[in-house]
């Protein structure tokens, strides 16, 4: 009798202690995920101005489909942005300069002298509302808890390695089997949606040619020619990878994101689509965006087609 | 004579105040012991303690000379019982159920199942689901399963519940036969005194958790016309005793 109690008592004691210890280890342990989250929060919260170099590449079976390179200077305080955007696609290449200043968003293609200006008052209201809450945390703890829960055990897949100079490399590598089934199931839906949307936005290719200098059109045409990536059968995410470098000041210095889809097009040809985004951040809080004086220049006001939708 | 079961100072208190108080009981080999008592006297509780379903608050229980708790499974190998009521997994057939039981006793011959079903008169219902059995049939199946492994001690709690007249007659002859042929010791509880009168060699009367009288049936019968008369008289005495006890404790 005594032996039985001793045995079960010690089993409970020991296993309870191990459970608590391992739970606490996982709870307190700084995982790559926590490092990444902390760096993201720190970067976003203290950010006033920054220079962004972004490079987006879309490849199909290893050949380049389109590429967008941008160099942007942004100031969150003044809500100003300036920079250039270079798009290389199958249809040719485009250089676009863009500015965001008090009169709105200004676009100009290198191919013409027209400045397109788009005003969006609705967004301005949003930003004013945003200003009020600026002092609040960038990500509320409630939202953070929800995101943590959604990520679940994927948290453990983030790895963090510290370099000798105090910076950290954080990476996440997922292969198809590790990607949650729900996300995986969305892949064919997303491709369907993409094809559907491109049909909508382009009543006919002839129309696009006539209006060739509208940068928005060019942008869509150059970067996302949905016909090139029209995977219809067996679409799935093959891999997702995320690499980030966090500098000693705990700011995200560079951020790389790759996603690879596999599938077949309508003709049954197998494709491997790779989308990569490489973002470099520099000159934290030391960037002043350029501005452009529109007086005396050829300006065309653009209406926002989507505005109606936003209000719905 | 060898003692088969021994209860020494066994007590059990329930939250509702009822229970068993200080029972001493010894079963000798070959006994057919009748445990008598009105409803709620504690017969089932006593049998549950004897078979380990509940543990006593005080006292010690041994079967075949071994402490019950220390050598539970070794002792239970030699015991067959039906406690409280004949309950079964109703989604199995009688044969399936007996086969499950046989798994606990590696030395049972396969034909033994048919034998015990025949012995209790259930052979023709062997392949029927227990769900469709009547109370009496379940009672018979419980008897069959408790003698399946040729036990040395059989404990039956109210075995005649739900049995028809024919069934009761059959039950008596089964007990007599098993006792005579195999020397099996029986402990049978009942609130129906006349059922046990012609069967038992010893009886004990349990009243409000106390074993108020124990005796040899032959000796009791010489002083009384029938066991029933003795039983009623003893219960009356028991009641008076309890009431006196209460009065004394008040004063």
């Amino acid at each position, binding site marked *: 009798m005594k032996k039985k109690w001793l045995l079960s008592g010690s089993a409970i004691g020991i296993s309870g202690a*191990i459970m608590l210890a391992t739970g606490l280890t996982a709870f307190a342990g700084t995982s790559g995920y926590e490092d990444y989250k902390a760096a993201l929060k720190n970067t976003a919260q203290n950010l006033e101005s920054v220079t962004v170099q972004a490079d987006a590449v879309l490849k199909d079976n290893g050949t380049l489909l389109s590429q967008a390179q941008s160099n942007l200077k942004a100031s969150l305080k003044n809500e100003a942005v300036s920079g250039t955007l270079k798009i290389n696609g199958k249809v040719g290449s485009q250089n676009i300069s863009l500015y965001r200043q008090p009169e709105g968003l200004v676009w100009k293609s290198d191919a013409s002298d027209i400045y397109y200006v788009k005003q969006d008052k609705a967004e301005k209201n949003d930003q004013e509302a945003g200003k009020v809450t600026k002092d609040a945390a960038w990500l509320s703890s409630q939202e953070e808890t929800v995101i943590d829960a959604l990520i679940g055990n994927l948290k453990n897949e983030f790895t963090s390695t510290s370099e000798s100079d105090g910076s950290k490399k954080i990476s996440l590598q997922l292969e198809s089997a590790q990607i949650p089934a729900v996300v995986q199931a969305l892949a064919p839906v997303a491709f369907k949606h993409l094809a559907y949307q491109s049909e909508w936005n382009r009543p006919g290719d002839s129309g696009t040619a006539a209006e060739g200098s509208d940068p928005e059109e060019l942008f869509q045409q150059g970067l996302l020619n949905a016909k090139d990536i029209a995977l219809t059968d067996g679409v799935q995410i093959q891999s997702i990878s995320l690499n980030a470098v966090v500098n000693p000041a705990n700011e995200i210095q560079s951020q790389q994101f790759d996603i690879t889809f596999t599938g077949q097009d309508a003709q049954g040809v197998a494709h491997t689509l790779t989308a990569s985004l490489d973002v470099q951040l520099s000159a934290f809080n030391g960037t002043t965006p350029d501005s452009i004086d529109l007086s005396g220049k050829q300006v065309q006001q653009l209406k926002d087609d989507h505005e109606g939708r936003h209000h719905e | 004579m060898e003692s088969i079961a021994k209860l020494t100072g066994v007590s059990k208190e329930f939250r509702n105040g009822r229970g068993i108080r200080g029972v001493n009981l010894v079963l000798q080999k070959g006994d057919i012991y009748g445990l008598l008592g009105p409803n709620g006297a504690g017969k089932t509780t006593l049998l549950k303690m004897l078979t*380990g379903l509940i543990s006593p608050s005080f006292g010690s229980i041994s079967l075949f000379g071994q402490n019950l708790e220390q050598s539970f499974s070794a002792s239970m190998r030699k015991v067959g019982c039906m406690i409280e009521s004949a309950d079964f997994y109703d989604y199995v057939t009688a044969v399936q159920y007996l086969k499950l039981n046989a798994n606990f006793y590696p030395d049972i011959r396969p034909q033994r199942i048919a034998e015990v079903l025949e012995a209790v008169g259930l052979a023709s219902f062997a392949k029927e689901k227990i769900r469709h059995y009547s109370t009496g049939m379940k009672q018979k199946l419980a008897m069959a399963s408790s003698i399946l492994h040729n036990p040395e001690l059989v404990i039956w709690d109210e075995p005649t519940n739900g049995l028809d007249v024919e069934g009761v007659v059959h039950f008596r002859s089964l007990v007599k036969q098993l006792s005579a042929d195999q020397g099996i010791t029986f402990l049978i509880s009942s609130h129906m005194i006349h059922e046990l009168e012609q069967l038992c060699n010893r009886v004990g009367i349990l009243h409000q958790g106390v074993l108020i009288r124990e005796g040899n049936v032959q000796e009791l019968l010489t002083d009384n016309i029938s066991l029933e008369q003795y039983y009623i008289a003893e219960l009356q005495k028991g009641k008076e005793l309890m009431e006196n006890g209460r009065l004394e404790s008040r004063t």
Partner: protein
Amino acid sequence: MDGLRAGLKNELLLMIYRKKTMFFFLVSVLIPVLFILLFHALHPILGRIAVSPSYPVQMLEIYTVFLIPLFMFVEIADLFPQEISSRTLKLALLRPITRLGAYLAKFLALGVAIGILLLLLGTVSTLCNILFGIPGTGNLDIFGLLKAYAAAFLSMLSLAALFIFIAQFFRSAGGFLVFSILLYTGAKAVPYFINGFSFFSITSYTDWYSLWLSHTVSTGRLVTTSLFLLSSLLMFLTIGYILFDRKEV
């Protein structure tokens, strides 16, 4: 242990005699096939949906979150509270088997049933991939698959131990079933409100097997999470036993 072998055999036989166990086995065989049929039905809308070598693992996610816990609750309800309410628990306890043996027999029988369920799923979904899989979607990594299934098995056993412990407080199968489903969904929802809860909750480990598919997860992480699951398995199993042992049948 005395009678454990016979006890386990009997609990398994009783599971088979109960129709719902076979029903669950049948459903678990059919679900991967039904998904294939669903994919075919969705063909005109979404194109062919990839059935790839990771299909067995993707199915595993659905099973460890929904089907196996449900199966577990139904079986535990039959193994414990149902036996109390129908007064059949004594049938096993009056045989030459100790309380510990009877208790372990029930737990092991449930473990075997969960194992069979996983085995059926793994086999059928692998067959589905071989028969309906789209070529060129990668290679089947048998070793990785086995690791994932073994890990899923451990997390399911720990979950089973937790709910066997909970079942000791119930005397009716229906009450236990409702409570355990509510508790499980509740425990699945809590991490959305309380940060850090998931580190201490077994219910958050249903997709734990995915760690074993990774090439980047550190060994330390695998060791601590395995230890967590093993120790919780042992703890709830032991507390459950103490309660079961004290039961007055």
